[in-house]
Every structure is written in structure tokens, then in C-alpha cells.
């Protein structure tokens, strides 16, 4: 593999783990990504799928995609954002123009015909999830369409236009302190606030797929989408490209270009980060602009926001908003306070932007990783030590009670709620509901996607952390130092 291939795969790993990548002015998007160029020539890069398919292909194969939390509500709110931001229906929806959060909320209210505070809190929760997954960008009480909206295929734009046309216009009493037009104008005057164009985006699998006839090619693409986007590992028998060893080999090549590897669970397959690229991605120097260059509103990428949300949750001023959907401020407070905690105000805060982008490299914030570790200890390690978990797996039927996390750990409660929300949203934790009091969290479907080496490393890291002075930990350390001493490329 050449070094350019390598950096391309690492870029894909970073985009999958951390959301859209930031590109400096003039830096081209890595192969297999679309470049969303802003007026100042900087941009964001986002992976595209082979042969113009989207994850909705899974529906045709009746494979469940990664579940969307409160899907209906989230999509209705996205429709409301689209209605507000897609002003000129004769051009593509992205980038659209900024719209005030309050206008979006009023549009949503008109759509569902409810006006209570509960609906408002739900809608804000949905906006936050959309922001965290880069479907919208929310900052300073203003919403714009996020990079992922640029991935809607052109053929589907007609459907979206029709949808936007039939959404009701909100009735807006002119009561707001600042007029919508002024908010929009302010947002548009920011250098990166609006405008942009979509460039490139040809998937890079031409040479691999070109050798196959139409049918095989479709089978490969279907299997690719299934292993990459299905919630659970898919059955080998359902996909020709998984059954046939030659096709499976090609599938492996396609995945390798994206820093992924096929992972087998008996007769089921899924994909996960390939060990070498994952390691490279955590130590890799990114293609982004120099830190501190940005002086104005930076529409954040997803994980950056997640990291910030966690960091912000600890500080007292963020505490109230970070502690759960139910505690969001009521109607009538300022727009900014109503915006979710995941987002930050960055006017003149170039250092903040740099920090944010650094968080994007690692994906999860400190609290999120801490909570995930706790769930692994309670749901896997302890049942394992008690002999209750026969399967050699990181998934577990033993939920970690939320109360255990809340009362018997060193984590602040405010951080806990925000971290659980983020982890649930990413499919790293699944919520188990059982009765009134019971239930809790178990490791989520993402743990299917760990390679054997990663599973093993996770076990070792837990042992090193929980029993650092045991001989077992000493043996792990000894083996690791022996491995690093061996020449490795």
C-alpha cells in the first residue's frame, strides 16, 4: 500500500470516528470524499458511498440500519430546519441560508400542532442530536444545514422540494426582541456563515469494481453498505459478496481503503476500524488549518461538539442545560440560552476552535470514555468474574443500573447524563428498560465492530487499570514492551 493510500484510509477513519474533516484553504478532499468548499476556500470533507447509493439501500435488503433515537421527531425537526433554511428551491438544499432557532421551533410547532413546553424540549433535544451528527449546525441561536445534507442524492431533491412546499408556514407574532432578518443578516455576514459549493465526491472504488459485471458490482456495493451501516452483523447467506470468498476478498479491499476491516462473528459479518489505521488515526497530524486562524463563528463538526458538551457540562454555567432534555430553559428565555450545550460561542476564540478540532481526533470526551469504562466493568467484567457471562464477548445481557453510575462512582451527575446521552446516540451504549426501577445500560452494538486485536487490548487495558499491581498486569506490560522493542517497519 502506498503512503497516499495510507493517508487516505486514515482520513476516512478520522471522518468516521469524528465526523466531517476540516480542510485548509486549497487542500483537496481525500479520495472518496466530497469537498464542501466555503467562500473562503476552506472546506469540510465527508465520505461518499460507491455508485451513488445511500444507506437507505439497506431497506431494500431488509437489514436494519443503525437505529435513530426518536427517529420520527428528529426527522420532523430536520424537515422544519429544511423549510427554514432552504430558501431557494431552484438550487441544492446545501448550504442554504441561516435561520433563527426560534423560527425553526415555530415551524415545527406549526407542523405538529402542539405548543407546549414539552414539545419545545423535545424539539431542542432533536436539534442537538442533529447537530451532533452534522446534519445541522447550530450556534448563537442560528441554525444552518449541516454537511451531511450535501449527501442527499440529486434525484431526491424533488421529493424534498415537494415536502418543503407542503409544510405549513408558522404564524409568528412579531414579539421577538431581535428580528429574524437581523439574526440572519448577522449570521450571513460572518465569513463562514453561509455559502459554499460541493466539489468532487467520486468514490474511489472504480478500479476495484470495474472488473465486475453489473450484477456482481451491485452485490459488492450492497454487502459494503450492509457491513458498514447495519446495526448488527449481517448474515453471510443474505449477501452474495459475503458468501463468495473471491468477492469477499474484494469487499475487504474496498473496506481497507477506508481504513476498515471485515469482522466475522460465526456466520455473520460486520466491519470495524482496521487496527493499523485506527492506531495511525489517533496519532495522525491532520490536514486542517492552523489553529487560531479562525476568529469567528465556526460551525462545529459532530464529535467536537460532543467533546465540548462534556467539557462544558462540568462548569456551573452549563450545568443546567447539560443535565437532560427535561431541564432545558423555558420559552421566553433568550435564544442563546435555549440552544443546546453542545455548541459553543466562538467569536474571537480561535484557541477554542483548535481545541475542538483536537477533540475530534479522539472522538469521545473524557466523561464519555469514563462512563463507557464503568459500563464495561459492571456489565462485562463483574458478571465475567462471577461466572455469569459464558460468551467471550464485549456485549452483555447484564445492564449497569443508572443508580450505580450515579451514586457509586466519582463522576459528577451532570456529566453523567450528558455522557450517557452521547454514548447512546453513538450506539456505544444501549438502554435496557425493564419495569419501573430495573434496567440500565449495556454495551451497544458498536462493540460488534471491534477487531479481535482491539477486543483483546480492551481486556488488557481494563486489567491494567483495575489491578495495576497484579502479576497479570505485569505480564501484559512485559509483553507490550517486548513487542515495541521488536522492529516494526
Amino acid at each position: 500500500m502506498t503512503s497516499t493510500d495510507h493517508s487516505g484510509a486514515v482520513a476516512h477513519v478520522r471522518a468516521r470516528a469524528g465526523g466531517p474533516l476540516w480542510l485548509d484553504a486549497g487542500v483537496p478532499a481525500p479520495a472518496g470524499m466530497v469537498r464542501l468548499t466555503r467562500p473562503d476556500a476552506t472546506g469540510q470533507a465527508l465520505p461518499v458511498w460507491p455508485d451513488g447509493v445511500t444507506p437507505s439501500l439497506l431497506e431494500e435488503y431488509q437489514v436494519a440500519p443503525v437505529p435513530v433515537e426518536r427517529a420520527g421527531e428528529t426527522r420532523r425537526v430536520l424537515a422544519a430546519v429544511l423549510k427554514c433554511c432552504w430558501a431557494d428551491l431552484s438550487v441544492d438544499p446545501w448550504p442554504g441560508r441561516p435561520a433563527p432557532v426560534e423560527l425553526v421551533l415555530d415551524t415545527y410547532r406549526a407542523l405538529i400542532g402542539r405548543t407546549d413546553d414539552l414539545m419545545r424540549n423535545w424539539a431542542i433535544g432533536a436539534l442537538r442530536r442533529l447537530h451532533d451528527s452534522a446534519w445541522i449546525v447550530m450556534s448563537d441561536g442560528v441554525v444552518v444545514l449541516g454537511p451531511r445534507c450535501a449527501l442527499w442524492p440529486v434525484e431526491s431533491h424533488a421529493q424534498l422540494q415537494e415536502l418543503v412546499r407542503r409544510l405549513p408556514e408558522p404564524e409568528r407574532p412579531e414579539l421577538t426582541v431581535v428580528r429574524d432578518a437581523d439574526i440572519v443578516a448577522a449570521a450571513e455576514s460572518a465569513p463562514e456563515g453561509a455559502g459554499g459549493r460541493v466539489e468532487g465526491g467520486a468514490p474511489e472504488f472504480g478500479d476495484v469494481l470495474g472488473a465486475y459485471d453489473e450484477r456482481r458490482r451491485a452485490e459488492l456495493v450492497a454487502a459494503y453498505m450492509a457491513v458498514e451501516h447495519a446495526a448488527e452483523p449481517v448474515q453471510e447467506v443474505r449477501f452474495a459478496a459475503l458468501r463468495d470468498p473471491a468477492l469477499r476478498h474484494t469487499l475487504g479491499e474496498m473496506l481497507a481503503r477506508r481504513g476498515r476491516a471485515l469482522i466475522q462473528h460465526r456466520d455473520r459479518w460486520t466491519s470495524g476500524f482496521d487496527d493499523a489505521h485506527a492506531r495511525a488515526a489517533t496519532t495522525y497530524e491532520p490536514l486542517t488549518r492552523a489553529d487560531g486562524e479562525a476568529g469567528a463563528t465556526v460551525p462545529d463538526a459532530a464529535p467536537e461538539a460532543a467533546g465540548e458538551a462534556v467539557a462544558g457540562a462540568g462548569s456551573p454555567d452549563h450545568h443546567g442545560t447539560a443535565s437532560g432534555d427535561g431541564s432545558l430553559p423555558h420559552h421566553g428565555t433568550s435564544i442563546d440560552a435555549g440552544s443546546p450545550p453542545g455548541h459553543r460561542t466562538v467569536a474571537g476564540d480561535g484557541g477554542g476552535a483548535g481545541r475542538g478540532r483536537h477533540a475530534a481526533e479522539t472522538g469521545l470526551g473524557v466523561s464519555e470514555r469514563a462512563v463507557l469504562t464503568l459500563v464495561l466493568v459492571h456489565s462485562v467484567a463483574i458478571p465475567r468474574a462471577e461466572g455469569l457471562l459464558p460468551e467471550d464477548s464485549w456485549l452483555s445481557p447484564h445492564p449497569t443500573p443508572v443508580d450505580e453510575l450515579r451514586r457509586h462512582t466519582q463522576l459528577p451527575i451532570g456529566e453523567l447524563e450528558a455522557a450517557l446521552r452521547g454514548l447512546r446516540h453513538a450506539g456505544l451504549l444501549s438502554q435496557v428498560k425493564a419495569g419501573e426501577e430495573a434496567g440500565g445500560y449495556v454495551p451497544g452494538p458498536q462493540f460488534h465492530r471491534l477487531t479481535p486485536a482491539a477486543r483483546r487490548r480492551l481486556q488488557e487495558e481494563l486489567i491494567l487499570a483495575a489491578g495495576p499491581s497484579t502479576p497479570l498486569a505485569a505480564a501484559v506490560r512485559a509483553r507490550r514492551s517486548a513487542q515495541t522493542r521488536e522492529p516494526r517497519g
Partner: protein
Amino acid sequence: MRSRTLVPVPEEPLTLDAVLTDEAVLSTYRRMFAALARDSGAVVDDPALVDIAETLFSAFAEAGEEWLTHEQMRFACRAYPADQFDNRLRVLKGLGAVREVFPKPNQLRYRASFTSVVGLMFIRRMMSDGGQSEMHRLLALEDLNVADPRTTMEEARQSAVNLARAFRLWALELITLTTGTIEELREQAPKLWGTEEIARRAQGLHGTILTRWPELDRVCTDLRAAIYAYSDASRRAAGRLADSAGTTRNLTLLPTETWRTFAQTASRERLAAVLDGFVFDAPAPWHDPAAIARAVDEAPRPAPAQPTPPRSHLPDPGPDSALDSSPDAAAERLREVAESLLGDGSRVALADVLGDDWPSARRVLADLTTVDLRPELPYRLAWSDGLTIDPEGEPSWLSHGYLERT
């Protein structure tokens, strides 16, 4: 004295697990007393027998200077079968653990031996952790001993030789485990915990001896070698465990309490450090245009407010007062209806009694059907197959039927 009845203790069902546990306990007993036993069958063959001894000793402790009679001993051990108790008492008496208070004939009171009680405590502790904490205590005691100015060089030498021997044997056991099956190794792994500390203590002891009696150089070299061999063997055993394949299997090797302590006391940063360097997918759900349109179509519509039907503003008491709610009223009314239709006859055709407007005919039919369905009323409806159709008239369809008196 009140009379008491002995209640048989229900026997627990003997499971395979229970047998295995018992056997493990017994094998430790046998190994511990191998040096003292006269023949290989000399150690108890049921762990419950040791419990009897323990129960007896605690009864002796409570009795104080009252001592215990044979009956009192039997009462203290009432939970155990008589033959087991007799067997135990015989052995304990024979070995001197339980003795007569005064060595003279027909002595009825007994006392327990302090040495045996301490011995039993030691046995129980050895059972719980395989001798590891004994080794800790032993090292701590030896440390005190060699620091004591009264200790002679000969005593120190003996102590070093003993320790060297213990460590060598321990190391050999670990080496055997390392080369044995991985399952056995995993099972015996708790013997490995805390080895670093034991080795450190032993080295400390070694240092003390060597500083005080440089003449013991050769014995100390032996001890040092034994300690190293032991550390090395335990590291190798742990290394084999760490290498053994499996994703989460080694998690069993730390006890539950260690995991709990970690979860409860570790700082946020220490917990987070476990997942350093792991890469997970960021949340990236796909919102397809079709799915968005569907979600909008499926939006929960608020139920439209239903207008209340218009009501008159005048007071309207309604027919409430006109209704006779007495139990016989309904039957009486129906009888009147039937009688008025029948007149004097015993039979009347429905076609004759129904009027030519449907609303009143409907009411009459409803009444007659009710009459028919009430067995206590002496009227019946009889239907025939005939049917009159008259498109102009009302009702335009009429089945032929008769109201009859029965």
C-alpha cells in the same frame, strides 16, 4: 429443665459441585497434615467433621470455668448426627484436644486445648487463601524476629533456610502450573496475587539478616535465589495467562471486589484512560428524504376540538319524571300494547296492525319483538315465509307474521 425435641436437619441434595468443593477442601487438609499423619487415611473424610470440632471449641469458650459435660457437648453439636459426633469426640480426646478437667477416674467434666484452637484458626485461614496470607504473616514475624536483639545467629540462619525452602517449593508449584493446562492455571491463578509484595517483604528480610550477620552470606544467597525463582515463576505463570487467547476470559482473573473498588474509587481521568487510543464510530444516522417525508406524514396530529352540540337555553327537565321506573311497569305497558292490538281475538296479522308510516310501525315492531322475547307474557310472534312487496307503500317490504295469544 425443659424437654427438647431433636429436629432432624434436612439433608441438602448432594450436587456434583458440592462434591467437588468438598474434595478440594479435603485435599488441602490432607496436604497440610501429611507431615503429621500416621497413615494416608488419617485425615477426616468429610469437611463437616472439622465443623464439629469448631462448634465444640466455641462451646468450650462460652462455658468458661464451668467446663462441659458429655451431655452439654452433645447438645452443642446437636445439629450433627450422633455417630459423627462420637467419632469426633473420640479422636479429639485421643489426641488430647479435649481432656478431662482433672485426670482422675469417673471425671465428667472436660476442657479444650488452647493449642488445638489456635491450630484450627490457622487451618481455616490456610483454607481461605491457600497459605498466601500465612506467608505474609510469617514474613512479618520473621522480620520482627531478626530485628530483635535477643535473636541469635543460629535462629536467623534457621529462619532463612526455612524461608528459602518454602519459596523453592512454591516456585516449583507455579512452574508445574505454568506448564499444565490453561484451565488449571486459570483456576489456581489467585495463588499468584500479591506475589510482588511477598517477594519484596522476603527481600527486606533477607537484607536485614545479611546486614546483621554478614557471616550468613551463603544461606542468604540461597534465600535470594529462591525468592528470584519464585518471582520469576509467578511472572511466567501470569504471562501465560495473559497470552492465553480470549477476549474477556482473563477478566475473571481479577476478583469481583477489585472490579467494584476500581469502578467506585477511580477518578474520571483514570476511567477514561482505559479507552485511550480506541476509535469508535461517531453518531451518523442517515436521514433519507423519503424517511423525512414519511415522518412528516406520520406526525401526530392534535385531535380537532369537537364543538359541543347546540343546546336550548330554556330549562328542560326532559322526560325524566314521565318514566315509571317500577319493575313491573315495562311488562304492564307491553301487555297493554299487545292487548290493544289483539282486541278480543287470539290472533292478528301484523300487516293489519302496522300503520302505513314507518316510524310508528317501527315502534310497534320493536315492542312486539320484546313481547315475544319475554316468556312471562302470554303472547308470541309467529312468522311465515310469505313476503309482501309494495314499492309504493310503507313499509315496502313486509314479512307475513301474526301476533298470537298463547
